[in-house]
């Protein structure tokens, strides 16, 4: 790429990821073999567990929703040259925003207004949490990688404090709030489809998937079709050029971090309003970090992130089924398999890509002697 050589687009965008994926599964298969299970059977369980029945598809899409939000958050920041690894904390605080809003209003307002408030609250809380590292980067030069990861821990501590001391449902053992009134529950997919007479098995999949897809479109428009996105990409592509062009990199960095944090905050919308229906601890479960892998794998493009999110969602759900069906495949091993996929398709991307692209690079030989 750096040399300006080009293989057909489908090679880079489709074939290489597929080969990487196959390689990851091959190595996983060897590990499964080593612990004495049948790798082929494992693959069948994994795939069937991820997409083989309605409930599985529901879970896969539910996980994909979270990963999409987190992946978009990473991608937006990346276009400004920022590596936001604080998605986990921003998602957590975004969820706090949803929780506080719904605890305050669920008894008084109808669902559409509650949904609007929740979207705004998750965005505002997530953005605020990302604003601080953004500000520190832009005005104080504290590297955003360090500060965002530190803010993850602060988010955990803050949430813990609030749930144990302030928001806890009295008399509860669990540090979690009361359940929201059912009016404040974002309809599940099985409910929504039920309105149209389509019966599907229940799963945690809810309407926030639609919002995630809408966010993909909005992010695409923002980054490639607006001058704000143009400014973001100039700052990320060449900061001195931004200064030359009269773009204040500091302002762009802060604004981009806020957008990034808002997107991460929507993980809280899916989890708190869509699935758990109460504020509780640890609902982010590492989605903020998987989002980094999804953004890398999806080349920071919304379309790529959708595909990568579906893959990771399928791995999450299929992996759970695998751990369920094959007792010897523990959840740690499932994490290993997921890790191998990330390793091959993210970190080792450049191991195979040049070779595969070279194979397809040669155009028809241009005549003989000149």
């Amino acid at each position, binding site marked *: 790429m750096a040399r300006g050589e080009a293989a057909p687009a489908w090679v880079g965008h489709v074939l290489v990821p597929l080969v990487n994926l196959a390689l990851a599964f091959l190595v996983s298969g060897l590990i499964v073999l080593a612990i004495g299970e049948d790798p082929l059977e494992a693959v069948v369980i994994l795939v069937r567990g991820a997409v083989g029945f309605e409930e599985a598809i529901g*879970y896969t899409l*539910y996980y994909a929703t979270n990963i999409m939000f987190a992946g978009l958050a990473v991608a937006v920041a990346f276009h400004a040259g920022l590596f936001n690894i604080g998605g986990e904390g921003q998602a957590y605080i975004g969820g706090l925003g949803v929780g506080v809003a719904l605890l305050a209003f669920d008894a008084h307002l109808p669902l559409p207004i509650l949904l609007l408030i929740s979207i705004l609250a998750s965005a505002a809380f997530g953005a605020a949490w990302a604003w601080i590292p953004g500000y520190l980067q832009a005005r104080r030069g504290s590297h955003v990688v360090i500060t965002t990861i530190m803010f993850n*821990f602060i988010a*955990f*501590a803050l*949430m*813990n*404090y609030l749930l*144990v001391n302030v928001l*806890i449902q*009295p*008399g*509860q*053992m*669990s*540090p*979690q709030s009361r*359940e929201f009134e059912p009016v404040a529950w974002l309809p599940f997919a099985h409910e929504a489809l039920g309105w149209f007479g389509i019966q599907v098995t229940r799963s*945690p999949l809810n309407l926030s998937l639609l919002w995630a897809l809408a966010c993909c479109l909005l992010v695409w428009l923002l980054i490639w079709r607006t001058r704000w996105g143009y400014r973001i990409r100039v700052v990320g592509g060449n900061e001195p050029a931004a200064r030359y062009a009269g773009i204040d990199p500091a302002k762009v960095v802060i604004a981009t971090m806020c957008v990034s944090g808002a997107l991460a905050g929507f993980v809280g919308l899916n*989890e708190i309003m869509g*699935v*758990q229906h*109460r504020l*509780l601890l*640890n*609902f982010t*479960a*590492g989605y903020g970090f998987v989002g980094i892998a999804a953004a890398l794998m999806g080349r920071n493009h919304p379309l790529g992130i959708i595909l990568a999110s579906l893959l990771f969602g399928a791995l999450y759900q299929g992996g*759970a089924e695998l*751990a*369920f069906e094959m*007792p010897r495949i*523990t*959840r740690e091993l499932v*994490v290993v398999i997921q890790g191998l996929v990330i390793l091959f398709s993210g970190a080792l991307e450049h191991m195979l890509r040049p070779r595969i692209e070279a194979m397809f690079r040669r155009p028809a030989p241009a005549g003989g002697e000149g």
Partner: protein
Amino acid sequence: MRASLPITIASAALLAAMPLAAAELSPAVVFDMGGKFDKSFNEGVWNGIERFKTETGVKYREFEVTNETQREQALRRMAQRGADPVLGIGFAQAPALEKVAKEFPETRFAIIDMVVDLPNVQSIVFKEHEGSFLVGALAAATSKTGKVGFIGGMDIPLIRRFACGYVQGVKHGNAKAEVLQNMTGTTPAAWNNPTKGGELARSQFDRGADIVYAAAGGTGVGVMQAAKDAGKLAIGVDSNQNHIHPGTILTSMLKRVDVAAYNVFKTAMDGTWKPGIQVLGLAEDGVGWALDGNNDKLVDAGTRAMMDSLRADIIAGKIKVHDYMSNNSCEG
């Protein structure tokens, strides 16, 4: 909670009418996020059901959750597959278990550390404050500096219940004694951070404590190591940890989750399983303090007598140990 009376009776009758043959029993367990090898709570359960497996030859299904949503998924999947009884480990499973137990009224469920009030659910909770009171009193009687420490895992109400009972025990033994308190962290990682546990213990020793009570799962391993290195004493938790460093572990506050888990499966097999709440305190031997060959030199005969009478007083209700959970406060 909302189940109507006729259904309750019907299902109770149904349950009573099906003492399953041993061969057909297919128990299942859903571990919490700590995982079954957390050297503490989940592992205690695992020990209990492994004992059940070796004794009866009955295999069980298991699952370790990795995120909030999987709890419900795993419980439901177990029930769908015909598992019975289904045992959920940890208070955090309560909402999911409540939901799934309603969907499968004919399946027997059990939960440890939390109450789910349904006709097909057995809830097992422990009076950790009572056991902690006893070890607190022992610490007060043993301490030479008049300062003792407490190191919790994650800062959640359950651990505050431990801390609160412990403080009451210490004060009961020595009203002027001081209790240093630290929590390891605010994430589940706090259950398995021996390095930080060791650091917190050393800092408490530096501040004058000579006995530290670790209610922190795997983190306690570091606390006990630090105590051994500093020549001080530590108190273990959940299972009997006296053997880890004989002579350093003053005692262990026993919380018999292994027995509880074993009993769920065993009673289900024998047909004596009953729904409802079991509160296991000192009286039921659900909690207690450990005395064995590893620590008998640390506890002299007079102290043993004192501990026995304290235990008897609590069981008899002469000493009231305040439960943090009753009002979300350590102030009675």
